[in-house]
């Protein structure tokens, strides 16, 4: 089977679950199959925004991030379900478990997509056979559809998986680039957002082909180093390895919430920050990290959005610290206008093992009092290993209770993989 693999290249798969949340709901409740289904936040309130929807709903023009009322107008028979994050996590776990049976080089990108490097997996068959087998098993075992892209690198694999949905398998070879990729508009390119595409049009670049032949100097002055990078991608070059650990390198943890109505009462906003701080605190502790910088997001009634952040004197993960710094930031940055959305983000995360608190001359006695206790802990850990004892407050929450902090970008959950992975390996 080795002859089906390139001699000096890699074979990368990008596996992308099709309308993942909606498909999971359909797997749980088969009566939903074939119906226009949308998963949305709070159904009664304005914050009801479509998180994802089935292909049947998409036919009516329903799109992700569309407000619920708008979707209902387009498709009155739309079935709306609240998200069940524990179901999605379970399904995602199952999906990645299947992927890891072909190679240990599986890099989860989010809850519903991942890259695989199958360059050395010839014992399982040719690349297409592997893709077909994955697709089949995910469908049979989990009742979930997925699309798979096969290409010599991550970028092309990602582009390929996007080309045929649902249940597609697309091969994108380097020699196909000029024919398939280059006629596409730049905003269809992975890694090029709306803003970047707009900027590109100012220098006459409309298609991926334009970009591939664009002037490097011009691109660099317009977009910086990213300009060079996307030009390389447009030429089908992408050296990034498939890194199973990359999901561990999260950069920030944050939560935001759209308020049920516009609020200009400071006390109410404080309460919102307190509850956000609690969620962020749980998430930080779950990952055993602390935030060295705290940021807040304020969106006003007119949708004008500002973010402000502050470098903290000491890294924090306690909800009281998070909320008190968030409140300080709010008082400093809020102009008093009605607020539509508030968010808190912990940035510059440090792992608890490497986080330090600089003691304070005027308050060190409080910490020093705990010294005997901490000494005991340290000697216990030295003797019996790191996990012998933990503070109750930092103890990992049972994963079945993890649902409360669900975000649409559910990377937290992926963090719980490493343990799981070793079993599969």
């Amino acid at each position, binding site marked *: 089977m080795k002859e089906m693999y390139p001699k000096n290249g890699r074979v990368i798969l990008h596996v992308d679950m099709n309308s993942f949340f909606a498909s999971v709901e359909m797997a749980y409740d088969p009566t939903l199959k074939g119906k226009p289904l949308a998963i949305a936040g709070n159904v009664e309130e304005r914050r009801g925004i479509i998180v994802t929807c089935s292909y049947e709903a998409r036919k009516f023009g329903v799109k992700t991030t569309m407000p619920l009322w708008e979707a209902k107008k387009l498709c009155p028979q739309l079935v709306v379900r609240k998200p069940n994050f524990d179901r999605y996590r379970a399904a995602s776990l199952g999906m990645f478990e299947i992927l890891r049976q072909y190679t240990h080089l599986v890099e989860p990108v989010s809850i519903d997509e991942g890259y695989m490097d199958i360059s050395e997996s010839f014992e399982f068959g040719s690349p297409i056979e592997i893709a077909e087998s994955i697709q089949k098993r995910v469908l049979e075992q989990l009742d979930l559809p997925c699309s798979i892209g096969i290409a010599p690198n991550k970028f092309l694999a990602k582009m390929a998986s996007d080309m045929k949905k649902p249940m597609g398998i697309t091969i994108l070879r380097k020699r196909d680039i000029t024919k398939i990729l280059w006629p596409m508009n730049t905003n269809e390119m992975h890694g090029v957002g709306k803003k970047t595409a707009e900027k590109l049009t100012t220098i006459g670049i409309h298609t991926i082909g334009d970009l591939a032949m664009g002037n490097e100097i011009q691109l660099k002055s317009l977009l910086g180093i990213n300009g060079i990078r996307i030009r390389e991608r447009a030429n089908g070059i992408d050296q990034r390895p498939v890194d199973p650990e990359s999901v561990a390198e999260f950069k920030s943890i944050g939560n935001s919430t759209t308020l049920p109505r516009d609020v200009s009462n400071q006390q109410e906003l404080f309460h919102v920050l307190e509850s956000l701080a609690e969620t962020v605190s749980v998430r930080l502790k779950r990952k055993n990290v*602390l935030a*060295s910088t705290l940021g807040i997001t304020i969106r006003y009634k007119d949708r004008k959005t500002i973010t402000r952040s502050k470098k903290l*004197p000491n*890294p924090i993960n306690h909800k009281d610290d998070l909320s008190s710094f968030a409140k300080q930031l709010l008082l400093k940055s809020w102009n008093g206008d009605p607020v539509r959305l508030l968010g808190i983000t912990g940035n*510059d995360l*440090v*792992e*608890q*093992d*490497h*986080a*330090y*608190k*600089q*003691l*304070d*001359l*005027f308050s*060190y006695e409080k*910490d*020093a009092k*705990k*010294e005997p206790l*901490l000494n005991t802990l340290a000697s216990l850990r030295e003797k019996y290993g790191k996990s012998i004892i933990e503070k109750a407050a930092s103890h990992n929450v049972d994963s079945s209770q993890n649902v409360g902090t669900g975000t649409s970008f559910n990377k937290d959950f992926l963090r719980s993989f490493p343990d799981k992975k070793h079993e599969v390996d």
Partner: protein
Amino acid sequence: MKFIIQRDRLVQSVQDVMKAVTSRTTIPILTGIKIAATSEGVTLTGSDSDISIESFIPKEDAGHEIVEIKQSGAIVLQAKFFSEIVKKLPTDSVEIEVLGSLQTVIRSGKSEFNLNGLDAEEYPHLPQIEENNKFHIATDLLKAMIRQTHFAVSTSETRPILTGVNWKIENDELICIATDSHRLALRKAKIETDNHENYNVVIPGKSLNELNKIIDDTNEPIDIVITENQILFKAKHLLFFSRLLEGNYPDTSRLIPNESKTAVTVNTKEFLHAIDRASLLAREGRNNVVKFSIIEGGSIEISSNTPEVGKVVEEIQSQSIEGEDLKISFSAKYMMDALKALEGTDINVSFTGAMRPFVIRPLHDETILQLILPVRTY
């Protein structure tokens, strides 16, 4: 007003008073330098209302004529332009003349500038300070005392009082203390006072920093006058006024530990270099933290571990170790700042526990100490 002046003397004085001028002021006239010519000489003034500096250029110095006054008077000129102009003028002498309606002409060689001046009458008066209550101190000693303390002031406005250096005068002794609550620097010196009065004031760290830049490293005495809300430093041909910070400085004397559980004596330079090396990796990470451990055989181990980068371990020989074993972590930056401020070839570090402040002193010198709070892990 009209005078001819030696350019290098003018440039020096302008540079000195510029230390007090800021472009960010709510009082527009303070973006200017006031120039006043009298029969005695020329006086330049700059101020940002916190700091005011007055530099005097005498008509004659050691028999040499520096300024030729043709007509006395005063004007305020935009500091930004005036300072650049005098620096770049082509010849060694400069003529400055104010025509009617505040038009000022600056001539040097064949170059001629016309600047729009501001009315000197509008310039705020400097604080009037009674000078019967003064004390003096050698300028080089004052510079040392500033250098050894002012770096430890707080840069954060959370406790504004800590952005200043606390000066206490008790029993003809000046004690300077600065702390940002993570470390503390203290320096004492005997001074001569006129009437043995006691003071306890807080001088903005920034003021002392600027003062340190413009006073010369000589042993000539500098006069110091303290009032309710101002301090005046009076050197030859130079007046430096600073506002004092309002509020009570925390009493730090009880926070400095007297006893010691572990005492270590090491060579200052060796210790400083070891910390510097250990922090090379720590600097890359977010915390600039190094670990200090006492190991067997009278040695000290300095180590640092930054997971993404790597780790470093270094052993240094101490001259003496007394008391309990100890492992303690602290900011490498604070330690290096402290060691650089100390004079003397050997230092003594006394610890009272891994989570308590420790004190660094030069051997056999009671006039200076540096205190550092350690860090703790979570």
